[in-house]
């Protein structure tokens, strides 16, 4: 939407360099794939040229692995890409794809897979999510987030809690004006009623939700119990401004997050979220619903 497309544009436009390289890798991979297909070369032949397997090429093209400048140079030569400007543009993407972003500074509280997930989140142009257990992370107050940590990970040392809250606050900057992304959240009534912390914490959390829901780039829909509609668990669909990069779905699991990029999987969840948003309450009714809940606390 208003984030604007950066497809084919100058590489500096990519808002990802701040958070981390995951989306740059996906973009570079998509472009390398297009060049390979245009030259009619198979994954196996391309893999051979860089002393690797066909699966190495397919991992590279999906953006799931790092790129070496020498490998990219060899592949471009194999694909017949000799134009200096085009080659330099892709090399510059390689450099960006190898640069650690700010999320790397939180390595002490992030697993590798969580870091990738947050890199993707931080450079999405639209984040759509469905939550039925808790308030979506990007909308949590510090107190609410702390209450969750204390409840589910009671052994967490104080300094680590502080680091986790600092990371959460830093992530929430994507919603500050001028916002780099749109958030479209569907929150089940259960998540709004469940109270991990004190009554005061929950009231403040719900009041903050009302305030955030008034931002033009944030849409919050409530799924009231009365609709009878629910999905199995939390779903997040990330949309990127770059036309070459398809949507990514991620699902929180007990043992870390799972992220899906296969078109069939993504399609399935995108359709579920499409259905949820047509059944949930109108965005214009959200504030009144939340005010009612605050009164009931």
């Amino acid at each position, binding site marked *: 939407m208003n984030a604007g497309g950066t497809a084919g544009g100058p590489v500096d436009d990519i808002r990802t360099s701040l958070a981390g390289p995951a989306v740059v890798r996906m973009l570079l991979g998509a472009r390398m794939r297009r060049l390979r297909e245009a030259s009619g070369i198979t994954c196996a032949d391309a893999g051979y040229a860089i002393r690797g397997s066909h699966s190495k090429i397919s991992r590279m093209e999906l953006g799931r692995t790092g790129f070496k400048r020498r490998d990219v140079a060899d592949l471009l030569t194999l694909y017949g890409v000799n134009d200096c400007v085009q080659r330099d543009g892709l090399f510059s993407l390689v450099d960006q794809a190898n640069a650690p972003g700010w999320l790397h500074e939180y390595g002490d509280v992030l697993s590798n897979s969580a870091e990738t997930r947050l890199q993707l989140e931080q450079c999405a142009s639209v984040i759509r999510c469905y939550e039925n257990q808790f308030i979506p992370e990007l909308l949590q107050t510090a107190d609410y987030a702390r209450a969750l940590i204390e409840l589910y990970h009671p052994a967490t040392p104080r300094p680590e809690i502080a680091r986790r809250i600092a990371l959460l606050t830093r992530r929430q900057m994507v919603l500050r004006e001028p916002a780099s992304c749109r958030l479209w959240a569907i929150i089940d009534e259960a998540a709004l009623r469940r109270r991990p912390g004190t009554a005061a914490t929950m009231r403040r959390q719900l009041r903050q939700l009302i305030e955030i829901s008034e931002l033009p780039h944030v*849409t919050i829909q409530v799924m009231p119990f009365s609709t009878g509609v629910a*999905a199995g668990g939390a779903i997040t669909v990330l949309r990127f401004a770059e036309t070459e990069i398809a949507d990514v779905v991620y699902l929180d699991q007990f043992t870390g997050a799972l992220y899906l990029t296969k078109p069939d999987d993504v399609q399935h969840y995108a359709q579920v979220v499409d259905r949820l948003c*047509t*059944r949930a309450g109108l965005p214009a009714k959200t504030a009144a619903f939340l005010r009612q809940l605050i009164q009931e606390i």
Partner: protein
Amino acid sequence: MSGDQPPYSWTEAEKDLMEGIDTTVPHSARIWNYWLGGKDNYPVDREAGEQFVKVYPGIIAEARANRQFLTRAIHYLVNEADIDQFLDIGTGLPTVDNTHEVSQRLNPASRIVYVDNDPLVLAHARALLTSTPEGATDYVDADLREPDKILNAAARTLDFSMPIALMLSGIMGHVADDEGPHAIVRQLVDRLPSGSYLMLQDGTVVSQENADALEDYNESGAVPYHLRTPEQIAGFFDGLELVEPGVVPIQIWRPDVTPTDPKDHVNTFGGIGLKR
């Protein structure tokens, strides 16, 4: 890390959920989204969209031309006709340069009412087509065949004592001849105050390839689309004063510098009319 299997077992609730949107028949807003390079389309839409392209490859250029004409028309309406209120019927799925984005870029205080009868389109519009703080956007769940309902709901947001631009982009084809398409437009325009405008564009019978492609499409179970002659399109403007150059292939309606291929200038006709 990769998902081989969806990790959740779905409950009865999901079956209920699955009833809302039909993913087994193509859907015009989602096919349109596919032709425009969007990401909000389903396999059934891509298949129907691809099939259409095989028979009529020009549809991709035409879909883009449709959006470009919309943008040029809004520029004219805001900059030269001082219009700051829009009634856009047949919103479609959000894409780039939606009506309120173009008009609010030129005048942030513009007020826009989007009307559609499709739950998915409306949900996306409500979430993504949001206004500047100075202006307003509203969304009306109504069918084009209910002009009174549309006009009454639009009056919540638009001031009907001041000029309004009525925008009908590629929607009249969804109304069959025996449903009185011209009378519907007349009914809508009648309620607009003097100084208002009608902007309308629609596919015509001129391209045989397009007509052939549409024949297959209309048999797919999708909401059918009815092609008209350029004269019938012009007939929607009866009683209005046409803005130059009149009702023409949209690519040559006040074109800007971006050149388009003249062989594409055949099938979608449109224009702008002023209500005196």
